[in-house]
């Protein structure tokens, strides 16, 4: 019998993937971040309307390690990172897998701006020639607010999009493809209702300190200044959870330990970056299937 051709031909991509993961790890270790592992199966995730977890035994597979990472921050760990598998029900497309690899890192004593600088520095080590598929990686990268992006690229203004509930559609279809084309773009300052775990801007309560990183039209990372007020976090969870239940989704238990310890969380910021998409960008792959050994359909 011949070796499985579909697997054998992925070898250059898988070798590159391994080198990228090693380089990421070396970058964070050199920056004095502690690498941690947290449980993949949880009693419940942070409730978010548009993210569905996969049930597993009497709990759920995590959709992000964020709750455990923030409990560690609250316990006094200043800099943390984790590279782990995450699961999201029903997400399958050219850039989506229901099981994928996430890189998350967290810093205390700063806000989301420090994470933008981390992103710039991480790419300087991953792409020493300062170029990635025609995108110039020289810092500082573009910082574009969501409101400016709607004005520049959208068929509606941000306010009109929010009123007509077309925010996601305009972001995905009109704005995203234009971002990060000449140099990477940080799309920042989201409407407060679109950032369930982010801190509001001190000088503008309608805007949350959240950003997404785009390179070549690809959404690569989501970050925010962490919300540290347990009462406001509880209210937001209750709101999201009520909406989830209204849509008939499996209820999550309230993460009481997380909410209790949130009171001790210092000013901090955290970011989640899709490793598979990063490898896609660095290898020029057109689909996420090309950078993983097995897709769900291959099993």
């Amino acid at each position: 019998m011949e070796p499985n051709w579909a697997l054998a031909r992925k070898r250059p991509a898988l070798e590159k993937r391994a080198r990228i993961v090693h380089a990421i790890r070396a970058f964070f270790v050199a920056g004095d971040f502690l690498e941690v592992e947290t449980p993949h199966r949880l009693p419940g995730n942070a409730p978010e309307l548009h993210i569905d977890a996969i049930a597993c035994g009497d709990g759920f597979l995590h959709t992000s390690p964020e709750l455990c990472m923030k409990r560690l921050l609250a316990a006094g760990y200043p800099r943390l990172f984790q590279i782990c598998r995450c699961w999201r029900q029903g997400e399958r497309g050219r850039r989506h897998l229901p099981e994928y690899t996430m890189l998350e890192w967290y810093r205390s004593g700063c806000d989301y701006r420090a994470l933008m600088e981390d992103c710039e520095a991480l790419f300087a080590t991953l792409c020493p020639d300062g170029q990635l598929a025609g995108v110039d990686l020289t810092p500082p990268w573009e910082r574009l607010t969501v409101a400016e992006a709607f004005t520049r690229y959208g068929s509606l203004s941000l306010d009109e999009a929010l009123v007509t509930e077309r925010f996601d559609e305009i972001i995905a279809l009109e704005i995203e493809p234009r971002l990060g084309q000449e140099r990477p773009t940080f799309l920042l300052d989201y409407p407060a209702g679109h950032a369930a775990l982010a801190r509001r801007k001190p000088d503008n309560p309608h805007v949350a300190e959240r950003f997404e990183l785009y390179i070549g039209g690809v959404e690569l990372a989501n970050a925010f200044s962490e919300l540290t007020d347990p009462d406001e976090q509880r209210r937001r969870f209750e709101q999201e959870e009520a909406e989830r239940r209204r849509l008939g989704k499996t209820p999550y238990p309230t993460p009481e330990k997380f909410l209790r310890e949130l009171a001790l969380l210092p000013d901090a910021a955290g970011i989640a970056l899709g490793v598979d998409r990063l490898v896609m960008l660095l290898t020029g792959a057109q689909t996420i299937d090309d950078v993983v050994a097995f897709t769900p359909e291959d099993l």
Partner: protein
Amino acid sequence: MYTCADLKKGLKLMVDGEPYVITQFDFTKPGKGQALYKCKMRNMITGNIYDRTYRSGESFEPAALEDRDMQYLYQDDSGYVFMDTKNFEQVSLSEETLGDDHYFLKDNMEVKILLFNGRGIGITLPNFVNLRVTHADPWVKGDTAAGNNKPATVESGYNLAVPSFVETDDLIQIDTRTGEYVTRVKE
């Protein structure tokens, strides 16, 4: 009824009373926002292509189509002719309707022909077909890496990538659903 979770490449559904097949599908989701299902669909009668984007919560009617077992007979001016071996009824499909599938047809091949109001509008081939390689670059001695590939042409004129050890006159198996090489076949 189908929901958005059923949407995928190859799904056939009714839109405005006509059958459509999804030819390209992508799931996309902005950040933490609502999922969007981007479809490129071909009208199975006119061949026209449309882009449609659906949001979760929408539902779709399956296309009213009949799948019938038929046998491939021959190619003539009208296109590719197939026969129902039970009642000897014949239908003809154009090369345009068949797309790349015409490369994988062999005489007397048993296929499924898709009918809409008695008209042939699509085909389902056996999953695998064996075809002879009519041209492949010679094997370079020492090139034993399993993942290396090179271009080749098979008897029907179809071009595909094959592993470096495949040579002219080899019989190879092709997956008709993806058009990709599977393995060499012993004769």
